[in-house]
């Protein structure tokens, strides 16, 4: 492919700099923008060096043709496509052998992390358009797809990050640019999970086993850097209020800086450092902003009275049955409080799932099924809160039924003892206390309901949805979509 006439004399200068001024272990600057396509369920625009990649994710949606459907999981489809103008010599439109191969290995790179088993009979489509190619398009496309999948709310066990290493002038270097790709001695694209498990690995060229070992170390470092950028972008998107933005494509010369700019500055992600600064600011604003934005808020707010009643009844009954002291009652309440929150969260989750699946009836059913799945309490909670679990379970009818029972019990007990009056009074008092404790933050009373539901979202991170968030932050940020 390479015409030797154009080959630069040296791809790495004596002081160890590459043609684009990078050192051997540096990646090209990467810019990521999330949610750039309104019709796609999730999307991402990524620039990496002079690569420009656009990814749209659709689904889970009904798989067509129907024979493609899988009874036990979603099918994942990955289409890598190069625009005919994306390369020096016009590429023939349509799938080439190269793009078919890349689509296959890229799909396989994602299969270990996408929780396809949650969406039987559906398809998750990942469409990659390479708008401008400049070496390393498959790795760039994978990085972008990871973000687009998260943007689409597809449950994943973690992000996939991809980077290549290669050999140039006998030296192992990270993230080849075009010249290095053309005239270098080897190219070794890798994709890995957050835990460093390799999900894509290809290689061509000439490498010794030792060089491969060294390269894999290098690529791990590169992937880590990229992961940080990805996480920062996701956090920013899901931490700030989602406002309507008018987007426009601005062409800033051909220096590889064609940028899709959003009017809202926060939406635009540049280098990791910048992102992170903005991130910290965003964090400070977080709480107030959160309260207003979420769609789920209303739904949950409506449900709260129901739960309060139920909760009180439960508490009273329990207090009576156990004949606990007042302190114990308060303790029990705290537990129940937590449970309630969980219940709310589960409701919210269920609704979310339903909303996502709106179009297809089939999907709706499945989402419900899932939601009930998720509604199952976490193992730890299970031990502590066993008695109350049943009431909390997602079926509303069940809950009502139980509450009647409890009311009856309560009445009986009331006849027997007088303690419960004290207890029941107490139940109303500590509640606000507990809430403010768990939050230790600002507390406009009207917003309490909202907060009560914002908090449970944290726990959501432990569920199958955790990918969208950063597990290491365990709920302190990014949990509100």
């Amino acid at each position, binding site marked *: *492919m*390479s*015409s030797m006439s154009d080959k630069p004399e040296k791809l790495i200068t004596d002081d160890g700099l590459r043609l684009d001024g990078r050192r051997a272990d540096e990646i090209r600057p990467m810019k990521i923008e999330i949610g750039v396509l309104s019709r796609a369920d999730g999307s991402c625009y990524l620039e990496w060096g002079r690569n420009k990649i656009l990814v749209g994710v659709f689904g889970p949606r009904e798989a067509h043709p129907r024979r493609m459907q899988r009874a036990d999981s979603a099918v994942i489809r990955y289409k890598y496509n190069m625009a005919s103008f994306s390369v020096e010599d016009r590429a023939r439109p349509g799938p080439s*052998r*190269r793009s*078919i*191969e890349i*689509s*296959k*290995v890229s799909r*396989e790179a994602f*299969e*270990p992390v996408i929780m396809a088993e949650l969406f039987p009979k559906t398809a998750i489509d990942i469409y990659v358009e390479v708008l401008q190619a400049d070496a390393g398009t498959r790795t760039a496309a994978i990085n972008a797809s990871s973000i687009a999948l998260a943007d689409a709310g597809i449950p994943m066990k973690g992000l996939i990050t991809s980077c290549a290493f290669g050999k140039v002038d006998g030296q192992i270097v990270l993230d080849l640019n075009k010249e290095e790709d053309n005239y270098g001695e080897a190219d*070794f694209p890798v994709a*890995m*999970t957050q835990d*460093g*498990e*390799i*999900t*894509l*690995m*290809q*290689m*061509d*060229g*000439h*490498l*010794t*086993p030792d060089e*491969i*070992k060294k390269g*894999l170390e290098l690529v*791990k470092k590169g992937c880590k850097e990229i992961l940080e950028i990805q996480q920062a972008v996701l956090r920013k998107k899901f931490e700030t209020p989602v406002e309507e933005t008018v987007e426009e494509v601005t062409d800033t010369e051909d220096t590889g800086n064609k940028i899709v700019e959003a009017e809202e500055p926060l939406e635009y992600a540049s280098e990791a450092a910048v992102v992170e600064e903005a991130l910290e600011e965003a964090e400070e604003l977080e709480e107030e902003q959160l309260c207003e934005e979420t769609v789920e808020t209303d739904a949950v707010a409506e449900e709260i009275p129901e739960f309060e009643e139920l909760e009180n009844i439960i508490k009273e009954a329990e207090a009576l049955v156990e004949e606990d002291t007042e302190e114990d009652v308060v303790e029990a309440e705290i537990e129940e409080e937590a449970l309630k929150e969980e219940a709310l969260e589960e409701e919210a989750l269920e609704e979310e799932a339903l909303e996502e699946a709106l179009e297809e009836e089939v999907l709706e059913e499945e989402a419900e099924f899932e939601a009930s799945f998720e509604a199952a309490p976490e193992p730890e909670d299970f031990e502590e809160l066993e008695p109350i679990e049943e009431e909390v379970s997602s079926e509303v009818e069940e809950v009502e039924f139980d509450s009647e029972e409890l009311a009856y019990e309560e009445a009986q007990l009331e006849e027997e003892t007088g303690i419960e009056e004290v207890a029941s009074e107490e139940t109303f008092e500590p509640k606000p206390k507990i809430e403010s404790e768990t939050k230790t933050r600002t507390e406009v009373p009207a917003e309490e309901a909202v907060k009560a539901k914002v908090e449970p979202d944290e726990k959501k991170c432990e569920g199958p949805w955790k990918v969208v968030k950063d597990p290491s932050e365990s709920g302190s940020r990014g949990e509100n979509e």
Partner: protein
Amino acid sequence: MSEIIATLKKDYIYNLMIKGKRQDGRGFKEFRDIKLETNIISKAEGSAKVTLGNTQVLVGVKLQPGTPFPDSQGEGVIITNLELNAIASPDFEPGQPKEDAIEMARVVDRGIRESGTIDIKKLCIAVGESVWIVHIDVHILNDEGNLIDASCLAAIAALMTTVVPNEQHGIGKNVPLAMKGMPVGVTLAKIGSKLMVDPSLDEEAVCETKLTIVSSSDGSIAGMQKMGPVPFIEAEVMEAIDMACEKAAELRGLYLEGLANKE
């Protein structure tokens, strides 16, 4: 391409593997019996058939003069084609090659191209005007697993016996195709955390992930491809490379070096 394999069979193979055994009694580093025949198609400039267990692959090499690519005017062109013929398995269908076939073809091609085994500079007839186009056509005749290794071996053997048909085109005497080094592909199947060479059809169905490593005569790696969704960890990759290089050297000694001496 993997056949639907009964869960029972899957369990069986998996349990055997845990005990360190394989269905057909082979060791984890053991290939099935290989038979290599060369020059079996006289119309082709080079040909070879590899029988690997029950897997059968036939490779024919044709050379034709053609125009060079604009960016490499003095170099010959290598085109590798691989088809999963419907004759080879009930799972294969006639028609356009599917992604599996395309991937295999490209892995085989990469091994040959990147190892530099064909001296493409010597395939130039007239700079910028005419060069030899080397068509490597891989015909899968029977799929009993590990098509890639069989294809790689057959392709390199066919190339090593290829004669450049100069006489036919009135440009001098026929000469053997200029070759250096012998790249050999070795595919490892990963089942659990174990690696085994030369997976059979059933093992391919169970393993989900394979790693093909093409290594050259000097022990360097010319091409790699991970196929399938299950991830590898770094230690496994290095282990796989060691195993592949070892087996490749063995195959080279057993089957290919003899061919080289004949020339």
